[in-house]
């Protein structure tokens, strides 16, 4: 019971006054954790997490090695270093297991979690969709159910912990092959303390027609969230995975550092869609990377709202001939926020193609950065690269930067790069207002139009939700 008392104390210290006004979805459920390791990170903490999960020895070793790497690696020396260096790793809980056990059917899902969905305004039709969802609540997946249909197809869609237990060979084969712990400090951190996330495997030739959806929330003050997701699309298969996030409000800073590895085997088609709306104190430092083999296609569709600092650069390695990579992203930064987002594409094989479309909106003094890397290796003949960056500035206090890097080591390639910065103009607003729209309605219309190329790639319910979030972000923007 000592554990839950500690939890209680943490909750009591939470002072949410004034912050709930800013963050519409900022509400807490009472914590019901039964197991929580101490604040801060040591090798013992790492061992304790692994032991609690009853993991195989190789995973414990992997975590401990990664922990060493984490300790040795310096903080990145680029990006928003002042914010990065303000993270206090000793003030974070690295593991939290809720009292709820794995759920198998919607009826068994605890009422207060359903309430959370209710408050998020997820429509009834979408809740039915959730039948095929694994929703991560706190650090463990508490609800997981597979549609019978995809089960029959041999699709595996489970949380990462279960994946490791039940499909150890498959997990071990690909584990950390795309993102090794030494990739960066936060990948190392995730590798040492990871918990939850999704494990997805699509057998050869199987097409999953319905998107697989996962919901993530962090719900504990100072609770770092380190989910680990791995998706393997076997030869000729097709899948669309959707991750949607919204977080409650905290006073203390909160760290979210995920690792997502995608493996697209020859001829497969893998799309990964994210809409994140972290509360404005969250550090969202995520490593996402895919490997696309011969004639495979990988698409990252990535929408970032909220957070204090987001650093996220979805990446595709095109290692097989004819592979295609596509990264479509939107970042919205409001007051006190820095969205440092971008894309990375590596053309390693001949006749590989890629397209990057990045859109950012900065408002109320918010800052958006596009950081891109396109690299074409010698021998990747016939490759085509198209990069398009659009920035929209809502006012003169906001900021947009572009850091595009291109390293082209092969001559027979086609490279296109376009970058535009536009401001919402008085003439545009006058035009819309002359049709009877208020200034705020006019602004919302311009912004929604700006991100339309992104929104039209989303399933209907997500498109509606995103438009609503934009509307919330734009509220009060007219003085």
């Amino acid at each position, binding site marked *: 019971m000592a554990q839950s008392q500690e939890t209680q104390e943490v909750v009591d210290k939470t002072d949410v006054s004034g912050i709930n006004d800013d963050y519409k979805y900022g509400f807490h459920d009472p914590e019901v954790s039964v197991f929580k390791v101490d604040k801060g990170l040591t090798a013992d903490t790492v061992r304790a997490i692994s032991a609690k999960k009853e993991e195989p020895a190789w995973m414990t070793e992997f975590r401990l090695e990664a922990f060493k790497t984490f300790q040795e690696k310096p903080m990145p020396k680029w990006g928003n270093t002042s914010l990065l260096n303000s993270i206090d790793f000793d003030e974070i809980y690295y593991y939290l297991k809720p009292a709820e056990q794995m759920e198998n059917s919607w009826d068994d899902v605890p009422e207060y979690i359903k309430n959370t969905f209710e408050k998020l305004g997820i429509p009834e039709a979408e809740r039915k969709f959730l039948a095929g969802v694994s929703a991560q609540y706190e650090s463990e997946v508490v609800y997981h159910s597979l549609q019978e249909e995809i089960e029959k197809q041999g699709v595996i869609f489970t949380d990462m912990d279960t994946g490791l237990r039940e499909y150890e060979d498959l997990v071990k084969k690909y584990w950390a092959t795309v993102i090794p712990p030494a990739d960066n400090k936060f990948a190392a951190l995730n590798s040492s303390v990871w918990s939850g996330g999704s494990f997805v495997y699509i057998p050869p030739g199987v097409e999953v027609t319905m998107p697989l959806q996962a919901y993530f929330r962090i719900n504990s003050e100072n609770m770092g969230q380190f989910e680990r997701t791995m998706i393997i699309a076997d030869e000729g298969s097709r899948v669309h995975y959707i991750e949607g996030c919204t977080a409650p409000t905290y006073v203390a800073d909160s760290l979210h550092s995920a690792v997502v590895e995608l493996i697209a085997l020859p001829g497969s088609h893998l799309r990964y869609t994210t809409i994140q709306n972290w509360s404005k104190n969250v550090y969202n430092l995520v490593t996402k990377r895919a490997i696309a083999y011969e004639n495979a296609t990988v698409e990252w569709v990535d929408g970032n709202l909220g957070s204090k600092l987001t650093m996220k650069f979805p990446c595709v390695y095109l290692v097989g001939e004819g592979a295609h990579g596509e990264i479509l992203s939107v970042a919205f930064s409001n007051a006190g926020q820095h969205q440092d987002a971008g894309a990375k594409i590596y053309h390693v094989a001949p006749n590989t193609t890629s397209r990057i479309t990045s859109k950012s909106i900065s408002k109320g003094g918010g800052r958006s950065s596009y950081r891109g890397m396109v690299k074409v290796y010698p021998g990747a003949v016939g490759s085509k690269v198209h990069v398009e960056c659009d920035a929209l500035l809502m006012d003169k206090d906001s900021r947009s930067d572009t850091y595009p890097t291109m390293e082209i080591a092969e001559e027979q390639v086609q490279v296109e790069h376009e970058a535009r910065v536009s401001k919402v103009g008085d003439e*545009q607003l*006058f035009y819309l*207002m002359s049709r009877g*729209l208020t200034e705020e309605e006019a602004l919302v219309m311009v912004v*929604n139009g*700006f991100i339309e190329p992104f929104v039209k790639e989303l399933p209907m319910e997500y498109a509606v939700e995103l438009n609503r979030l934009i509307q919330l972000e734009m509220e009060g923007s007219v003085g």
Partner: protein
Amino acid sequence: MSDEGPLFEARGLRVAIEGKEILRGVDLTINRGEVHALMGRNGSGKSTLAYVALGHPHYEVLGGQILYKGVDVTELDTDVRARMGMFLAFQYPMAIPGVTVSKFMHSALKARATDNGDDSNSSNGQGSFKTAGTIPIREFRQNLTKAMDLLGVDKSFTGRYVNDGFSGGEKKRLEILQMFMLQPEFSILDETDSGLDIDALKTVAEGVNATRSPERSHLVITHYQRVLNYIEPDVVHVMMDGKIVRTGGPELSQALEEQGYEWLEDELLQPAGK
């Protein structure tokens, strides 16, 4: 707000942009049911009058008043004036990338159905189309299709983004389509005829003529007599150097067409009573 008296009035209107006085005392009265033509050379202040009538934020009113339905709207926001029934067909319509014509039009109709806190929308239901705020989306689509048929506007318009990549003629057609759908009581057409081929010009004329009624008024701003062959004005004004210097009937535009603006300038320079 009054149903009596003129629909639109400018009284001694003086307007500057970036410190430079453009309108130097404009008086203009437009009654319900009338079509007025405002002619004049480039830089005479015609477009400034159009912008300031709708409250463009870059223009500064130095003196005088703008009245609409007897209400002084000089200080009102653009959207409020629009919801009171004023409309401007732009000379250079703005592109709104990512927003389809259909969505844009629906939003505009909904906005017009919004109450301004007065009875300014009491006439909204009187037109051939009700506002989308009170009609289902299906009916809106049907009305839009009907309007496009009538004006000879291509069906592909509805799914295209507003003025994005539109040709000059397509932009003007879209302005007229909006005017037709929104059924404003007072429409200003700012050189909508400029640079149009004869087919597009007929669309513009058709739009004005189809919305002509005893309750509605139009102010057609133009360089040329040409469009007035298709839209017969009740009153013609000539603007020079920020003032209306001559007002007459359709014969005035004919005289300008035949003799040019120099004729009028010469005549104005003659001592009065000659």
